C-alpha cells in the first residue's frame, strides 16, 4: 500500500535576520495509512517545523514531500491551503480555539471553511465520541483545559481529515486530562483508522503511539 506520508532528504532553512537557520537537515520519514506516530525530541530539534510542513502551513526548502500523493514542492501556497482544508486536521498545545465563538461554533467553523456545509450527523457523532455534548454552548474561557482540547480535537476531525497532526496536545493538561485526550486520540485511530502524527515531550504520551520517531538537530535519529 502507498504510504500516506513520505519524505526524503527533507530540508527546511529559515532566514532569521541575516542568518540561515537549518530547521530540518534531511528528514526521511514514511507513514502508512492508519498509523499513530509519536515524534519526540528536545526543543528546537525541528519537530514542529516537520509538522508544519506536513500540514502545508509552510513549504519545504528542498527534498521530497509526498502527502496523500501530493508533492508539496510543486504546490503553491493556495494549493497547500486547499489541501489542508480537506485533508489535514491540526491540534495544538494551546488549543487555539477562537475565543469569541462557542464550542459548537468553533467546531462548525471547520465545516464552514471546508465549504461542504454543516453535517449534523457527523457533528453529533464526533461530539458524542469526545464527550462534549453538554459543553457545546460554552465559550472557551468557560471550559477546562481538557474540555478545550477535546473541542479542538472535534474541530480537527469534524471534516474527516486523512491526517491528524497534533503538536503537544497534552502539553497544557494535567495528568487526568492528558490521559483522557490520549485515549480519545487512540480511540479515533483505532475506530476510524485515523492517521495521527503527534509531537510530545511526554514519554507516557509517546507510549500510546504505534511507533516513536526521535529527532535531534533537524534529523530523525531513531525509529
Amino acid at each position, binding site marked *: 500500500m502507498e504510504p500516506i506520508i513520505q519524505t526524503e532528504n527533507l530540508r527546511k532553512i529559515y532566514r532569521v535576520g541575516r542568518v540561515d537557520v537549518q530547521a530540518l537537515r534531511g528528514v526521511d520519514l514514511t507513514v502508512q495509512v492508519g498509523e499513530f506516530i509519536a515524534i519526540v525530541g528536545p526543543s528546537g530539534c525541528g519537530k514542529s517545523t516537520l509538522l508544519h510542513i506536513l500540514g502545508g502551513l509552510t513549504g519545504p526548502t528542498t527534498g521530497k514531500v509526498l502527502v496523500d500523493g501530493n508533492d508539496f514542492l510543486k504546490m503553491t501556497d493556495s494549493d497547500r491551503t486547499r489541501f489542508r482544508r*480537506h485533508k489535514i486536521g491540526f491540534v495544538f498545545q494551546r488549543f487555539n480555539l477562537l475565543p469569541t*465563538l462557542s464550542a459548537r461554533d468553533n467546531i462548525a467553523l471547520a465545516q464552514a471553511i471546508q465549504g461542504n456545509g454543516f453535517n449534523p450527523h457527523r457533528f453529533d457523532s464526533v461530539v458524542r465520541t469526545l464527550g462534549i455534548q453538554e459543553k457545546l454552548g460554552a465559550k472557551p474561557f468557560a471550559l477546562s483545559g481538557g474540555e478545550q482540547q477535546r473541542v479542538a480535537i472535534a474541530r480537527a476531525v469534524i471534516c474527516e481529515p486523512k491526517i491528524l497532526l497534533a503538536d503537544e496536545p497534552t502539553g497544557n493538561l494535567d495528568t487526568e486530562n492528558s490521559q483522557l485526550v490520549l485515549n480519545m486520540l487512540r480511540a479515533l485511530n483505532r475506530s476510524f483508522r485515523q492517521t495521527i502524527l503527534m509531537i510530545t515531550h511526554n514519554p507516557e504520551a509517546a507510549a500510546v503511539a504505534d511507533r516513536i520517531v526521535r529527532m535531534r538537530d533537524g534529523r530523525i535519529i531513531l525509529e
Partner: protein
Amino acid sequence: MILANVLHRPVRTTIAILAVAIEVTMVLIVVGLTSGMRNETAKRVEGIGADVLVQAPGASMFLGLGSAPMPVKIGDEIAEFPHVQAVTPVLIQPSSTGSINLVWGIDLPSWNRVTQGFVYLSGGPFTGPYDLLVDDWNAKANHTKVGDTVKLLNHDFHLVGIVEHGKGARLFIPLATAQDLSASQNHATVFWVKCTDPGYTEDVLKSIRHWLPTYQVLSVREYYTMMTSNNLPALNAFIAALVGVAVAIGFLVILLSMYTTITERTREIGILKSLGASKGYIIMAILREAGLLCAVGIAVGCVGTLGARKVLLASFPTLSVDLTVDWALRAATLALVGTLIGAFYPALRAAQLDPVDALAYE
C-alpha cells in the same frame, strides 16, 4: 463569527459605528442645509409673483451678495415697455446687527402691484420711515411681535406688521430708508417685473436684454431652475469638499479600527489558516465585519440626521433642511465604499500573514 467579533470589542465597535454615523449625518446635513436654503430662497423668489428680474452687470445670482446698485429710473423705463404690467425696485442690504439678515428695501405701492401685496398676519403696512415688516418665520425665530423695536442696520426699527412668509425676504423696510442708510439714493439692487400675462415673458425678456445687453436679465422661472438645479459650481465645490472630509473621516477610522483588529487577532487569523481558510475567505471575513459596522453606522447616521434636523429647526426656525432619499442612498454608498476601501488594506495584510508566524503570535 462576524457578529461575535464585532461584539467582542464594544468600545472599538462603537467608535467605528459612530465614525460612519457622523460621516453620514455630516453629508446629509450639509447637503440638506445647502439645498434646503437654496430651494427655500428660490421658492421665496418665485413667491414674489414677478415674471422677470433685472440685476446690474456682474451681480451675483445670490440676491444681495453683490451690491451693484442700479438707478431706479431704469425701472421706470422698463415699466413703459410693451406687455409690462408693473415694475418694483428693491434695494437689498445685508444687516449684521444681532444676526446676519438680508433686509429688503421696498417701494410698497409698486411692490403691491407686482406681488398682489402681503398677507398681514398681524399689524399692517409701513406708516413711517423706520417701520419694519417681518415674515412669520422670522417673528417666530426671534420671538418678536407687532410694536417691538428691532435693531437693524445700526438703527432701531418699529415692527409694524407680520406677514405671511414666501415673498422674497423675511425683513422689509421702506425703499427710501434703505437708500438713505446705504447712501444709495435713487438706486436699487434688483427690479422685479410683472408682465401683463406670463405668456409675454419671453417678449419682455428680449426687449430688456436688447436695451440692457450687459445686465443680468432672467425670467423668474430660469432663476428658479438655476437655484434648484444641482449645477451651481461654487456650491457643488463646497458640498464636494465637505463630503470629501466626511468620507475621509469614515475611511480613516475604519482603516485604523480594522488594522488594530487584525493586529489583535493575528493568532486567530493563524487558526483560520490552519483550518484551511483561503486568502479570499479571510479578506471577505474582514470586509463583512467592516460592512456590518458600516451598515449599523449608516442606520445610526440616518436616525442622527433626523435628530440633528429637529434640533437645527428648533434652534433656527428660519433654516430649511431638505432630506432626500436620493442623498441618503448616496451618503450610504459613499460610507460603504469608504469603509470597504478602508478595510481592504488591513484585510489584505491579514490574508498575507504567514500561518506559522501568526500561530506563534502572542
